[in-house]
C-alpha cells in the first residue's frame, strides 16, 4: 500500500513543475534514444553481414596462407595451381574447387577505360560462387586449359566501357593486352565490402601470363557434406602443409566467418552502446542535480511529513521513487524515439538498423537503474533531514 502511495506522491511531485521535470527528462530521453539507435545499428549491421555470408552458401570453405586472425599480418602466398589440383583430389570433385588471384588493372575499350579489379579464376567459379550472367557465357574449361585471352565483365565495367552496345564478342585491352569479351554479369551489388560489379574475370592461367606470376591468393571449396566440412578443411590444410612445410595455412568455414564477424560486430555494438551510455550518464547527473534542488525546496514539506509520523525510510522512498519515475518515463519515451529513429535510418539510408525486444528491455532497465543510482543521494539527503531544522526553513 505504501508503495502505491509513494508512486502517487512521486507523480504529483513531477507534475508540480512540469517544465522542469520535462527538461530533466530530456537528458534521459536523449541518452536512452542514443543507446537504442546505436545498438539497433550495430545489431542490424551484424544481421546484414551474417545474411550476406550465409548467402555465399553454407558449405563454403576458404583456404589461404597464413593465420585466420584479424590481427595477423597478411602472408605472401606461395600457393600454385598444383596446390589447387591437390586440394581438388582431396575433395574428390574438381567442380567443387576454384581459385582466385587478384590484381588491379586498367581495362580499355576504345576511348573508354576503367581501373578495376581483375580476378584470375577457374571455370568452376560459377559453381562455387553462383552468379547470374546477363549476356553471353562464363569462362570454359578449355579457356583455362589454353590460357585463352577471354574476359567476363562486371555490370559496372560493362556499362562504363560499352555504354550503348552489346559487349559480347568485342575487344578490350587489359594492361595493354587484347582480350575478347565472352560474357557480362548481371548486377550483383556489394558483398562483404567487395563491389562485385566492379570486377572482371579472366582465366587464371591467362592471368598468370599477364601478371608474370604463378601464385594463387586463395582456394575456395564447396564442400559436399556440411557435417564433415571441418574435417575436410583439416585434410586440405594437411595436404598443403605437406607440400609447403614452411607456410601455415588456414581453412575457414562460412560459419566461422560469421562467428568471427559476429564477434567483432558484437564488440563494436558494445562499444557504440557504451559511448551512447555516456550521454545517459550525463542525463542521470542532471536528474541528481534537479532532485537535490527539489529536496531543498521541499524542506518544510519533509519536516511536516516527519512531524505527522513519516519515518526517514518513508521520505527516502518517496524521493527515490520520484527519481525512478522520472527516468523510467524518460526511458519509455527514449525507447520510442530511438525505435523511430532506427526505423527511419533503416528505411531511408543504406545503414541497417534492427530493433530487438531485448535491447528495448535492456534500455528500460538501464533507465530505471539510472533513476535509482542518481536518485540515491538526494533521497538520502531528504531522509536524513532534521525535522526541526526543516520546519524552520519555511
Amino acid at each position: 500500500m505504501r508503495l502505491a502511495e509513494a508512486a502517487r506522491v512521486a507523480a504529483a511531485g513531477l507534475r508540480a513543475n512540469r517544465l522542469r521535470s520535462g527538461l530533466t527528462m530530456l537528458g534521459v530521453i536523449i541518452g536512452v534514444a542514443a543507446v537504442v539507435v546505436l545498438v539497433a545499428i550495430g545489431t542490424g549491421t551484424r544481421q546484414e553481414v551474417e545474411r550476406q555470408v550465409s548467402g555465399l552458401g553454407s558449405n563454403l570453405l576458404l583456404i589461404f596462407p597464413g593465420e585466420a586472425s584479424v590481427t595477423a599480418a597478411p602472408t605472401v602466398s606461395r600457393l600454385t595451381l598444383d596446390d589447387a589440383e591437390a586440394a581438388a583430389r582431396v575433395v574428390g570433385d574438381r567442380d567443387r574447387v576454384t581459385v582466385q588471384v587478384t590484381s588491379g588493372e586498367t581495362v580499355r575499350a576504345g576511348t573508354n577505360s576503367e581501373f578495376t579489379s581483375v580476378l584470375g579464376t577457374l571455370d568452376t567459379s560459377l559453381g562455387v560462387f553462383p552468379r547470374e550472367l546477363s549476356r553471353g557465357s562464363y569462362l570454359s574449361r578449355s579457356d583455362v586449359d589454353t590460357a585463352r585471352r577471354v574476359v567476363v565483365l562486371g555490370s559496372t565495367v560493362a556499362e562504363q566501357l560499352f555504354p550503348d552496345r552489346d559487349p559480347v564478342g568485342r575487344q578490350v585491352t587489359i594492361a595493354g593486352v587484347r582480350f575478347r569479351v565472352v560474357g557480362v554479369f548481371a548486377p550483383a551489388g556489394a558483398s562483404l565490402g567487395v563491389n562485385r560489379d566492379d570486377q572482371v574475370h579472366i582465366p587464371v592461367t591467362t592471368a598468370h601470363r599477364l601478371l608474370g606470376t604463378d601464385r594463387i591468393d586463395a582456394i575456395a571449396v564447396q564442400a559436399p557434406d556440411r557435417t564433415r566440412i571441418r574435417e575436410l578443411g583439416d585434410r586440405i590444410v594437411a595436404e598443403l602443409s605437406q607440400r609447403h612445410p614452411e607456410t601455415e595455412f588456414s581453412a575457414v568455414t562460412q560459419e566461422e566467418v560469421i562467428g568471427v564477424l559476429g564477434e567483432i560486430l558484437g564488440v563494436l555494438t558494445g562499444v557504440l552502446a557504451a559511448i551512447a551510455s555516456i550521454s545517459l550518464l550525463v542525463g542521470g547527473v542532471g536528474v541528481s542535480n534537479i532532485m537535490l534542488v527539489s529536496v531543498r525546496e521541499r524542506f518544510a514539506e519533509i519536516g511536516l511529513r516527519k512531524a505527522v509520523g513519516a519515518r526517514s525510510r518513508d521520505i527516502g522512498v518517496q524521493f527515490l521513487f520520484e527519481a525512478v519515475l522520472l527516468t523510467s518515463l524518460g526511458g519509455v519515451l527514449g525507447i520510442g524515439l530511438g525505435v523511430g529513429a532506427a526505423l527511419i535510418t533503416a528505411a531511408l539510408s543504406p545503414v541497417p538498423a534492427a530493433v530487438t525486444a531485448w535491447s528495448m528491455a535492456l534500455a528500460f532497465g538501464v533507465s530505471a537503474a539510472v533513476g535509482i543510482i542518481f536518485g540515491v543521494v538526494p533521497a538520502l539527503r531528504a531522509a536524513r533531514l532534521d525535522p526541526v531544522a526543516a520546519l524552520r526553513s519555511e
Partner: protein
Amino acid sequence: MTAAIEAEDLTRTYQIGAGTVAALRGVSLRVAAGDYLAVVGPSGSGKSTLMHLLGGLDRPSGGRLVIGGRDVSTLTADQLAELRNKTIGFIFQTFHLLPRTTAVDNVALPLVYRGLSTRARRQRAAAMLGRVGLGHRLGHRPSQLSGGEQQRVAIARALVGGPSVLLADEPTGNLDTATGDAVLRLLEELNREGVALVVVTHDREVAARARHQIVLRDGRVVDDPQR
C-alpha cells in the same frame, strides 16, 4: 490518571560553530490528560524548542521525557515517528499545509503513514473537516482558503489520528484578532471533548485563557502561576 506528557529537568543544547548554545536549561512540566496548558515567553525563551521536545520531534540533551507513557530515551527514530503519528497533533503558526494538495488530502496525510487505504483516509479526513466546519471545502487547495480556514484544516489534520495531545505553536500568529479568536475557541472546544492542549505563545492574553501557564525566559521556567 497517567499524564499525557511528563518532562523532568529537560535540557537542550546545540553546537553552533565552536561554541554551544543552551536553548533549554532544565525545564520540568506535566501535561495531564485533557489538560489545557500555555507555555508563554518572549522570543528566544526556548518555547518552540520545548514544544518540539514535547512532541517527540527532537530529543533532549538531558533530563527525562515521557510521552504517552513511553520514555523517549528508549525509543528509536522510527518508534518516535510512530509515537508522533499516534499520540501527538502539531499545529504550526505558518500552517505547513502541502500547497498542491486538496484540503481533504492534507488532513489525511498522517493516516498515510498508518497504511490506510486512500478511501478510508479520505473518509476520516472528510469527517474531521466537517468537525471543524469545513465540510464544504474538501476539494479546495490551500491557496483557495483564507488564513483562518487554512489553520482549521491544519487543526483537522492534527486531530485525524486521534491524538492525546495537541501542540499548537503560535496558532494565531498569522491571523487577525477575530479569526484568531475563532481558532482558539475551536481548540478549546476540542480540548473540552478530551484532548490535551498545549499552546505555545508570546501573547499574554492568549496564554491567560489556558488552565495553567508556564512562563519561560532564557530556557528556564521563571513562574508557574496556577489559575
